[in-house]
């Protein structure tokens, strides 16, 4: 018997085995693979809905989708490595400064067509969200949602001392003093001024509400006006240095320590996203009935809130399947998918398009405050657009360092403002606004 004859039955057997063992490609086999990176939020049920939506959209586009997550803490570690190694995902959920940074590098596709499609279903983009995604007349990202920072306070404590919920920065200091004097909390004022969003977002709201923005409307550096900035610094640092209503430990808090301290009943005020409401609701927390939220305070120049926690969908140019990636983004932002996500987000995901803002879902006392916060919010770099330089002012902690210099290093507010101006000028000199 020849070798060929002997091997034939073996070959047939091999073919049969392979045919039986090999996975069935199925009638709707994916034409390709897409990768998507998204933020892991403090609301896991909302994340699940988003993932399900994204998978459904990918399936419609005939694609397989691999989802990876990051937190606010490691987002830029992941993106920095990907930018350098040219391995950005096909679909990138970017924070408030991400579109400006990546578009400036020429790494984001023009998303104007997708935005056009989304606005037909969800209405126009909010003007304040547009500054973070539109550059040179083109949209480089699709606004996904905003997580508004609101003022959490204990309404039972305020009732006990006969105080109205505070509406100004000064009122927070005054009420904190009363709470301390009443012996309810040693350190009621939970504004941390640390290196997390709970620090730098209120820092911008504070400065802007005192009229101390550092750029003009075109985004060019003009310097922090010294008078208003010093006034603002004196108000908030007195809580640490004079009234002792805030503890130095707050300056080292992580992004979740203020949530924990508030829910442990140790502080009266703290700035935070709506995640505390979700945590109290899901744990049936005893403080739920005593927890209330309010718009962040206003100052002499008005209520100029920062809208720092804004997430946007970008499609990096590195990807080979741009069309499909854009189709998936368009689908995730379609009315049906968006409403599923929004209404399952425990009021964390606030739309940045006009129409869903009027949905009855927001027609609750907390919902109204949350929506109002987003409507009043300004993008990073206000009153100009979000620029790479404005992004770096936030990410290099210049603003919170200015405040902590007064508290920790005991420099005068005037000297702290001078130092901050020097650092911001250096950033704008290095990253000039185009």
């Amino acid at each position: 018997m020849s070798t060929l004859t002997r091997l034939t039955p073996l070959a047939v057997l091999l073919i049969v085995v392979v045919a039986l063992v090999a996975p069935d490609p199925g009638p709707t086999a994916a034409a390709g693979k897409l990768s998507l990176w998204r933020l892991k939020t403090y609301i896991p049920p909302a994340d699940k809905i988003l993932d399900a939506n994204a998978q459904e959209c990918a399936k419609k586009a005939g694609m397989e989708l691999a989802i990876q997550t990051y937190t606010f803490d490691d987002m830029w570690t992941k993106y920095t490595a990907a930018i350098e190694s040219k391995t950005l995902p096909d679909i990138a959920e970017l924070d408030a400064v991400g579109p400006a940074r990546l578009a400036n590098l020429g790494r984001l596709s023009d998303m104007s067509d997708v935005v056009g499609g989304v606005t037909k279903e969800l209405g126009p983009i909010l003007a304040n969200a547009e500054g973070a995604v539109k550059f040179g007349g083109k949209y480089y990202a699709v606004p996904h949602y905003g997580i508004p920072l609101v003022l959490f306070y204990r309404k039972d404590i305020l009732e006990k001392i006969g105080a109205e919920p505070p509406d100004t920065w000064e009122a927070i200091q005054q009420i904190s003093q009363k709470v301390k004097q009443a012996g309810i909390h040693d350190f009621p004022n939970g504004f941390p001024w640390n290196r997390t969003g709970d620090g730098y977002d209120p820092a911008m709201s504070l400065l802007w509400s005192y009229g101390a923005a550092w750029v003009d409307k075109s985004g060019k550096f003009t310097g922090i006006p010294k008078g208003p900035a010093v006034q603002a610094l004196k108000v908030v640092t007195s809580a640490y240095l004079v009234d002792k209503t805030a503890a130095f430990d707050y300056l080292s808090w992580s992004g979740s320590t203020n949530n924990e301290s508030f829910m442990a009943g140790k502080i009266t005020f703290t700035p935070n996203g709506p995640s505390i409401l979700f945590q109290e609701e899901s744990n049936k927390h005893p403080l739920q009935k005593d927890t209330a939220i309010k718009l962040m305070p206003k100052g002499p120049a008005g209520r100029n809130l920062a809208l720092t926690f804004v997430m946007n969908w970008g499609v990096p140019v590195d990807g080979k399947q741009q069309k499909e990636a854009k189709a998936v983004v368009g689908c995730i932002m379609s009315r049906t998918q968006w409403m599923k996500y929004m209404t399952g987000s425990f009021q964390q995901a606030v739309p940045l398009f006009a129409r869903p803002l009027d949905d009855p879902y927001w027609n609750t006392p907390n919902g109204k405050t949350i929506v109002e916060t987003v409507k009043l919010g300004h993008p990073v770099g206000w009153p100009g657009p979000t620029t790479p330089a404005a992004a770096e002012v936030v990410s290099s902690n210049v603003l919170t360092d200015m405040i902590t210099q007064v508290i920790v290093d005991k420099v005068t507010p005037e000297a702290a403002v001078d130092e901050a101006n020097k650092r911001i000028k250096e950033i704008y000199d290095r990253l000039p606004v185009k």
Partner: protein
Amino acid sequence: MLTDRHREQLLGYTMIAPVAIFLAALVAYPFLSAIYLSLTEKIVGYPAHFVGLRNYANLLDSGRFRIVAWNSAVFTVASIAVKLVIGMAMALALHQVVRGNQFIRGILLLPWIIPTVVIALTWKWLLDLFRGLVNVTLIDVGVVKSGVHWLGDPSLAMLSVVMANIWRGFPFFGVSFLAALQTVPQELYDAADVDGAGSWQKFWRITLPSIKSVVAVVTLLSTIVTLNDFNIVFIMTRGGPGAATHIFATYSYELGIMSQRWGVAMAASMASLPLVALLIVGVVRYLHREEE
């Protein structure tokens, strides 16, 4: 035609080639690349431009960097000094233990094998102003009336991160010293006993001189690791309050990742290199002298 000697040389080079290539790829290239980057203006996503020593000059001119350098020195020196003392005490004590020696050694090694992230989070919780075990205990036993600001007071924050670092690192000292102690001949101690030497004299005259090479190497290695530590400070304080615990690693992270300025971030992390190089040269020369 190759001679035997040449053939032997060729074989020798061939045998060490894989290791040499491995070291070049994984050690030399990243190291040289980091040095090169520190001499450039390199922003993430853009090409690097050579700027010579400008990054270093700017850092030296920066008040913030001077604070970071001072903090790094305090963090490292304080951590190493205490780890050295506790590690030595641990080794001497364990050296005397006969029963359960292995078990105790295993327990004492725990801090060293637990991931640093877990250690940092645990210490952060222990020292929490409101709910931390340390403050709750101090208040309960009446030592203080209200919680101590371990992570908020600038000097206590540095003390806190140093404490966490010591807790993590002292077993390395202890176990290394213990291994060295077991090589010291018992006859030396017996002779010293005959001469009427006390415990202190035996430690200074026999124990320490016998294990000083190990002490030098362990101290050097731990100094390098401590100087480059990131996790403990980043998780416990993020370099705060203000810049009170900002050290080289956290500062480089802030510059390189958050601000996307790789060139200057590399320069900041390279700043400790001359000191480390001096230490390495010093220890190596010392060890050579000892061998001779």
